[in-house]
């Protein structure tokens, strides 16, 4: 049905004085979905806000209004700020690497290669693995005594090596990042491969005829063409990385000490191991506000909201 046909149908259905009635009918139709959305979206948020002003702990169900108690504690909690910093570090390092590697792989596979489909299928495998399973697998890989990584290094070194991948402060971040990048680069690769497939070949050919080099074509034609998809991919992965939990939990549980503790791990420990319920609600609310601001700014920046 075209727009003009739809317009005709609507006009035919319209009755004098029936505008208000129609409006009510439309509201009635959308009301259930609005109600469900409010129930599952807004109610938990409001409840979270309410709980964050109480003092519910493991042993006390103190539901009296405590003012800004939890928010004051939150501001003073250096461990929480450190966890936030670790999360930002993971995001800031992993995201560009995943993007660049994914893009490079997509560029490689955009051309017809022998066995292309098989390679793509194999490359995508890490994405379908549950993150906690990926973390456990990498934990075995990095196992000092029984893990293959140390054994392979040992073969080259000609002696048994004792590299503490998930303990040594200078190795623990690279170890986590390696696992994270291994798992999620294929996600970038898939999205960017799809985006690259949609780039108009005739434009690239015309540019080549006009004497544009590879990089010039890439920056002037390819990048603008794939940017909407790339921006969405960056946003999705950025948000994912901000919620980073499973791989870090499986590899280090946030250690040594709290050196690799992310904000999600911090919230889990406080909320579900120590049952600092109200305090965790305040932390969660802070994360929501922070992420909302970041996402809005990002959307504005990449102009996707339009």
């Amino acid at each position, binding site marked *: 049905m075209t727009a003009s046909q739809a317009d005709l149908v609507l006009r035919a259905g319209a009755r004098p004085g029936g505008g208000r009635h129609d409006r009510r009918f439309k509201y009635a139709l959308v009301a259930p979905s609005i109600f469900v959305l409010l129930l599952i979206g807004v109610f938990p948020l409001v409840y979270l806000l309410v709980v964050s002003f109480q003092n519910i702990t493991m042993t006390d169900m103190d539901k009296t209004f405590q003012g800004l108690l939890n928010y004051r504690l939150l501001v003073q909690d250096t461990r929480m700020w450190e966890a936030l910093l670790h999360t930002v570090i993971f995001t800031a390092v992993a995201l560009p690497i995943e993007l660049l590697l994914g893009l490079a792989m997509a560029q490689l596979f955009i051309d017809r290669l022998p066995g292309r489909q098989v390679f793509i299928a194999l490359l995508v495998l890490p994405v379908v693995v549950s993150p906690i399973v990926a973390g456990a697998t990498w934990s075995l890989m990095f196992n000092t005594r*029984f893990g293959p990584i140390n054994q392979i290094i040992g073969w080259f070194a000609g002696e048994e090596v004792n590299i503490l991948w998930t303990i040594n402060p200078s190795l623990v971040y690279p170890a986590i990042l390696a696992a994270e990048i291994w798992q999620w680069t294929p996600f970038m690769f898939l999205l960017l491969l799809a985006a690259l497939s949609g780039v108009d070949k005739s434009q690239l050919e015309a540019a080549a005829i006009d004497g544009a080099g590879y990089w010039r074509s890439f920056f002037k034609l390819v990048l603008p063409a794939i940017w909407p998809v790339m921006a969405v991919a960056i946003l999705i992965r950025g948000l994912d990385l901000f919620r980073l939990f499973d791989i870090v939990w499986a590899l280090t*549980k946030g*250690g040594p000490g*709290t*050196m690799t503790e992310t904000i999600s791990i911090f919230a889990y420990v406080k909320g579900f191991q120590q049952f600092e319920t109200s305090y965790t609600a305040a932390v969660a609310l802070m994360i929501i506000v922070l992420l909302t601001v970041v996402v809005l700014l990002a959307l504005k920046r990449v102009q996707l909201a339009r």
Partner: protein
Amino acid sequence: MGGRQYNEEEKMSIQHRRPLGVCRQALLPALAVIALAWVGVANAQSAAQRAVDAAKKICSGKTITIVWEAGLQSLDPLNFSGPKWEQLTGCKVKVVEVPTAEMFTKIMQEYRAGTGAYDALNVIPAWMPDLVQAGALEMLDPYVDKYGYRSELQSIAPTYRDNQMTVNGKIYAFPDDGDVFVMYYRKDLFARDDLKKAFKARHGYDLAVPKTWKEFDDIGAFLTEALKKEGIYGASSFREPGYGNFMFQERFRNEGGKFFDANMKATINSPAGVKVFSDWVKENKFMPPGVEKFGFVENLATFLQGHAAMTISWPPYGRFAAGYLANEKALDWVPKSRIAGKVGYALPPGGHPELAAGFALSVASTSKQKEQAYLFIQWLNSEEISSQRVKLPYALRDPFRDSHFTDPAYMKLWPDAKEYLAALQAGSKTGLLDLSLIQTDKYEEALRQGISRLWAGEDPKRILDDIARQWDETTRRVGVEKQKAVYNAWAAKSGAYPK
């Protein structure tokens, strides 16, 4: 059993007395005798049978849900006790498997949600103050009395009975797992003449099972030096922070450490604590590479494959090392023991092993079938059924009743089983309880993080000062006086500190 005894003359006299009042006089003692006899018969019936008989009436056709540690532990209710209970009573048992690290969280979450999803629970005794204070556990005293279980509870080994059963004098759980750290050592290596001679020449005393940590260090370093070419290290140990937490608690107290002073200020950073951390770092040098990450399985694999001369762990190591039912399908994952018949059992250095973790059976306060759940745990925990359960090769439940340690059937399970049981019993007598306070996990978390920082190369004193600061902060937040009362109650227990 009391009750008046009558001679023949009295009986005849009673029979010839008239009228009705006299008859009543005769009737009352007779009834009393009958009642007492009936109680006697009832008591003669085992606690397990009483639970079965009662459950047949109130639980048949129903299903109770029990939370159990995931993995081998849960094969007990899945393969043995659950089906048997159903067969005896008609009452089904649904097992919810939860990894140990998440059990507390799951139990608390369910309690907060109040859905009644769990009926019976496995809880680690150190959690009990937290769970009781929160209201998650049902008090069991009324059920114990109703179903006549109090006398059988007395035959649980005193350490477990006196320390892991009650909170504020009330019963909230039945100790059901004699978890205690035991030192396992290679008898064959300790008996080798060349090693004995060389050790004596170097250290001036005989090579024997270490009784102090100094001896442990001497022997461990010596054996590594002497046997490394054969692929054997002097010792291996739990070092992964979750397990290291138990090892620290044990050793710290064996070295004379106290967790808090009289004002409830943390003293974990005392010289004893620093010594433990410093010694650990030194000991890693004679232990297998990567020992810093050794948990239950890594340490087990190392020991069973014959790569370590000594180790300290929970009781199942002894059974696995002996090759007890090594062909059991559920134990496929356990490396085949290469040291069967070569393993000796002793108390760890210091003589006061950690009663690390352990499990106790409890009833969820939110259960809608409390009585049914209670009957199941009474039956599980009873003398009759528990003696069968601790012999299951796969279930990881360890002897916890006096009778388990002297069970002739158990002693025949493998050639050294008698010595094994003796070591377990000795450990139960001198064992040390896990620290148990309000919000225990916060204290343990600080310790676990401290251990991971130790392996990352930080200074022991600095780490322990930081742990002490975190402990003090937690105490302050809980309330110093409130926590002090809980700590003092814990410290007054027989297994809190070495006597």
